[in-house]
């Protein structure tokens, strides 16, 4: 046994070095992971704790002191509009995704592929509107919503959310269409496809990942909004989850922390995970393709 160890001694020191480096990196990362994840862990455990367990200061609060419970979720679904909010959120996002696709995909294609005069400037202008903050637009938009008769219904959000998804996704699709080889389209044209035919039959199918990415962003970016939902939708049963939870479940000074945290996580976590997978695309999008 000892003989073997001696024989492999040099690689082992190398491995030790490697191990030490790993440990150092992990030690450096640990506080970051802790800071990033603790609030989420805290939500998770609060959601499954019994009410009295939340208010005991003499116990260690990081684990269950009373058996975990699903009661908080029961309250959520039976005594609040939570179910309706989930349906609202999904319906709003689906409409927003649809509108975004129908506008951003053709626009991205036109700007990237058809060598239109002024395409570059038009593209930049559309993208820059993504940077016009909601806080400047929400007062005039409230007038628009009132004129359309959509105040106090989630349809208002279907109208306003594309104001940020369309610019972002147009930009995203522009970048995407640029990576599709021009030859494919030319081949299709030679084979007798019209301009539209080449787009629909040849370019779109190979750009499916890009189209899917746009749909994901239409969903995730819609979920990041709070201001528009807060300002435009006041009936309790019309709100999307990120607005309904903090505004309807908190009434006065009585907090149902368990239900609140459950409500927040049940929708927030899937969105966070989904967004996680597409984060690099988001960064690529906003840095304007500086990074390839």
């Amino acid at each position: 046994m000892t003989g073997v160890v001696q024989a492999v001694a040099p690689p082992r020191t190398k491995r030790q070095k490697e191990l030490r480096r790993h440990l150092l990196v992990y030690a450096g990362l640990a506080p970051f992971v802790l800071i990033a994840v603790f609030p989420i862990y805290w939500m998770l455990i609060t959601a499954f704790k019994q009410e009295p367990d939340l208010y005991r200061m003499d116990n260690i609060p990081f684990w269950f002191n009373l058996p975990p419970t699903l009661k908080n979720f029961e309250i959520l679904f039976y005594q609040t509009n939570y179910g309706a909010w989930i349906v609202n959120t999904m319906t709003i996002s689906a409409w927003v995704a649809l509108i975004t696709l129908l506008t951003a995909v053709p626009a991205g294609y036109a700007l990237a592929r058809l060598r239109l005069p002024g395409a570059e400037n038009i593209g930049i202008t559309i993208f820059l509107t993504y940077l016009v903050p909601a806080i400047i637009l929400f007062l005039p938009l409230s007038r628009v919503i009132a004129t359309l008769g959509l105040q106090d219904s989630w349809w208002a959000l279907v109208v306003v959310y594309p104001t940020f998804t369309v610019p972002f996704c147009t930009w995203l699709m522009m970048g995407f269409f640029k990576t599709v080889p021009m030859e494919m389209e030319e081949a299709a044209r030679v084979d007798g496809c019209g301009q539209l035919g080449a787009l629909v039959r040849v370019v779109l199918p190979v750009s499916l990942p890009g189209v899917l990415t746009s749909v994901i962003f239409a969903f995730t970016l819609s979920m990041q909004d709070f201001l528009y939902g807060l300002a435009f939708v006041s009936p309790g049963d019309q709100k999307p989850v990120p607005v309904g939870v903090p505004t309807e479940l908190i009434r006065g000074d009585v907090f149902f922390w368990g239900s609140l945290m459950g409500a927040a996580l049940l929708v927030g976590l899937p969105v966070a995970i989904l967004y996680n997978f597409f984060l690099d695309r988001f960064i690529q999008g906003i840095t304007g393709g500086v990074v390839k």
Partner: protein
Amino acid sequence: MTPASLSGGPEPAARAAVVSVPVGATRRAWWRTHSAQRYVFGYTLLAPAALYVLLLVGAPFVFSLWLAVSDANVSDPVARFIGLENFRSAWEMETFWIAFQNSVVFLVVAAIFKSVLGTSLAFLLLQQFKGKKLIRGLVVIPFTLPIAISVLSWKWMYDSQFSVINWALSRAGLIGGYGSPDWPIWLGQPHLALAACIAVNVWRTFPFSAIVLLAGFTAVPLEVLDAAKVDGCTFMQRFRHVVVPMIFPILMIGFLFDTVFTLSDLSVVYLLTQGGPGNASKILPVLAYQVGIQAGNLGRGAAIALFLVPLLFPALFLVLRNLKRREW
């Protein structure tokens, strides 16, 4: 690939010419020419998106300028022009200046913490180690979780009595028990309230800074660094003269995006403190919301929101310049 080959070069036109010779290229009306058809097709595809943006971003922006110089309010739909009255009255509001100051403090303090945390995290994530994907995924969760949702967690952690932060501090012996004078009430004490809101913003966006930085670092080709090394550059020289200039544009963009989002976001402060106690943590977006929607004074609310524009304008300008330089 050269730009010519990317955009198809001259071949399509040439091919079109060959095809169209029998028809007689010269006799065709201008709207039937190849490029005219392409333009019509292109602008038709572009129209829906352009119209959406024009009608629901462009027009409202112009409309907000009009609101700001009118006496529009929720109860009276007929607005009259009142000049710069709204700006003047905002200017004379004490709360406005408190909110303005808080906004600037918020932006600067948060930016400092974000850049320190973001840079350190980026350097750590630059290393090769096992489980990198998982750790990266965990660390960016604060940024990907919808903000209105994660703020709730913080509201609970900042609870006046059952705050887990205070519990930990108290157990560590750093503060006394509940009720003792040094027991911090995070959202109820003027200076702490603003700091607590800033902390949440930093928590949410430091992963964003790190990822943007990381994207910048990975954009620096290793060959360039090696070449600099061969030429005898020290680490600091390589960093200063190679890495920084190469990642500068992307850093700038990340920084500017963050400025825009931090300055214009109201959800953290609104959900944690509503700007309180008193006006201690009030920032401009919260004030604009309270004046414009809650008090129904659309004109003055719009004017307050527009005070953000001079703060945002340099950001927009720099982003624009940067985007203009991107490869087409």
